[in-house]
């Protein structure tokens, strides 16, 4: 397929990203940072939904946990380095992803969806009630700590500096996700979705594969949440609410679950729409909902499918040559 070109596309995107602060106004740079963070969140969600076929309604619990733990760590541990704040946030989601994953993954399909929703509600309830730690409805305000490299310290007060940090760390994580989907482990997850029985016959422990993937996506969502806190320098219970799951679901689905880059496109479109629609009307969530249902009914492949189909129609033949492994090539870069 087109995997040969992908590394060059990634490098080109990073290079373009590096030049952006010179051109863009602060308002747009702010938006771009948000888009990068939410891209990682949406991609981690799509690894569950698109690759493993697990529909989770509780992804916000990891996003919110990462966001809250980072904020609480920065507030309560004076002089905490930026790396460690992020690390603590991610570590907490790894642990909770493993613990809750082993409980939730006992069920599949609709049962799994229902349970994840219920556990997300539990996290939300705890965050709301535990006022002394999470700040309840008021949320927590933080100041970004400075970034300490080996011999120098970079102030994170400026948006441009933080943008570069986000671009490098979150961008690298997204690239790693792309790499992950091409590893043996990534392929295993895909094949388990397609034919679990056969994978079991072949000697794979499918439950372990799923648990590893669930923990991994939880950690990625936690990293996104951690950066979310650092970006806004504020975290409220909305970060761990079911609305945050709805957000990622809309992003992923609008962008398309069948392509790796679908969720990135989705995050981009969603945040742009959110910014422009909310200027025009207060009812923008309604429009997002209508778009979502329309897409579920008529374009299940999302925007990325529309783009791929259009490209195929105007610029040449279908990309596959008929030697498709059942379903295995369905998701490509």
């Amino acid at each position, binding site marked *: 397929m087109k995997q040969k070109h992908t590394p060059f596309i990634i490098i080109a995107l990073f290079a373009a990203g590096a030049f952006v602060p010179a051109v863009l106004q602060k308002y747009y740079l702010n938006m771009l940072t948000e888009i990068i963070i939410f891209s990682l969140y949406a991609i981690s969600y799509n690894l569950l*939904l698109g690759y493993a*076929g697990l*529909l989770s*309604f509780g992804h916000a619990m990891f996003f919110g946990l990462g966001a809250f733990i980072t904020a609480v760590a920065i507030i309560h541990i004076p002089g905490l380095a930026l790396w460690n704040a992020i690390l603590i946030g991610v570590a907490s989601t790894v642990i909770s992803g493993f613990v809750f994953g082993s*409980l939730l993954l*006992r*069920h599949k*399909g*609709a*049962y799994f*969806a*229902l*349970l994840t*929703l*219920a*556990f997300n*509600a*539990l996290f939300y*309830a*705890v965050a709301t*009630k535990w006022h002394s730690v999470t700040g309840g409805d008021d949320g927590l305000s933080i100041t970004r700590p400075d970034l300490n490299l080996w011999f120098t310290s970079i102030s994170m007060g400026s948006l441009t500096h933080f943008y570069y940090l986000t671009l490098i760390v979150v961008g690298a994580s997204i690239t790693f996700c792309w790499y992950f989907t091409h590893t043996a482990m990534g392929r295993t997850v895909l094949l388990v979705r397609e034919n679990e029985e056969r994978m079991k016959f072949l000697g794979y422990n499918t439950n372990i594969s799923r648990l590893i993937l669930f923990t991994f996506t939880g950690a990625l969502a936690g990293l996104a949440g951690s950066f979310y806190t650092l970006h806004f320098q504020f975290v409220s219970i909305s970060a761990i609410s*079911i609305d945050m799951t*709805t957000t990622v*679901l809309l992003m992923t*689905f609008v962008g398309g679950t069948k392509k790796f880059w679908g969720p990135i496109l989705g995050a981009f479109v969603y945040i742009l729409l959110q910014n422009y629609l909310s200027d025009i009307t207060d*009812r923008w*969530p*309604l429009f997002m*909902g*209508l778009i*979502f*249902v329309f897409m*579920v*009914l008529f374009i*299940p492949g999302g925007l990325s499918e529309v783009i791929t189909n259009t490209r195929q129609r105007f610029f040449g033949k279908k990309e596959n040559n008929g030697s498709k492994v059942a379903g295995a090539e369905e998701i490509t870069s």
Partner: protein
Amino acid sequence: MNEIPIFFLHGLAYAGLLFLVSAGLTLVFGMMNVLNFAHAAMYMLGAYFSYSIMLRFTGQLWLSLLVCPIILFVIGSLIERFLLRRVHAYGHVQELLLTFGLAYIITELVKWYWGNYPLAVNIGGFLGSTIQIFGMTYPVYRMFIFVCAVFVGAVMAFILYKTRLGIILRASVNDREMTNILGVNVPFVFIGVFGFGAALSGFAGVIAGPLLSTFPGMAQEILIDAFVVIVVGGFGSLGGAVVASFLIGELQSFGVLLFPNLSIALVYLLMAVVLITKPSGLFGEEQ
């Protein structure tokens, strides 16, 4: 401890409400294998329609109880016929996403039309009054909820286990294709079941309006509890829904009395224990 009987009654009232919501949910799930995320949105619509009806005809709760389920039956049937059936071929994920999207849209529409704040519904007359029980005054309305739930549960059980319609329904649960081959119009039955589930949910919404306040977040609140009921009771089991509603209603009620700060966690704790010890639920069949 004079409060115990009173809290027991509170628990019964909430259990009744939970049963009314989760019975429809579990019925639709058992029949059609669709987990309806929009179910609680129907419940909310019921409450809001009832509010509007009561605004015009003050104190006429019976009118709401009659009209709202009919409206929601129509809405539910239309959703099944024109939306859900269309995505059925794409599988479960698509169905779940559709109902989730519908719930989202309904919530936004409700916020738009009725506003994003709680509304109070006043019931006058005998239902709004209090009676003396266990030497304390107790609102009649809460007991009315419980009576309604028992009545609905009894009617459902009668239809399911004692009538020809019930045989058809149970047969469809058991083997959809074979029932279809034997000459039952299963797609038509599905419209009816989905509509009935929506009507039941709307009925619960009408009843819930005066007890809890009517606000756009009410759907999500009851949805989670109804999901817990289904998980604990067992998927698709009506008897399980009865027992689990009772357990969770009482747990919530006494949880508030005994551990005010932990009351929410208790329900989830129960769910976690059931999941670990018996993943299919108390009355569920092994998968």
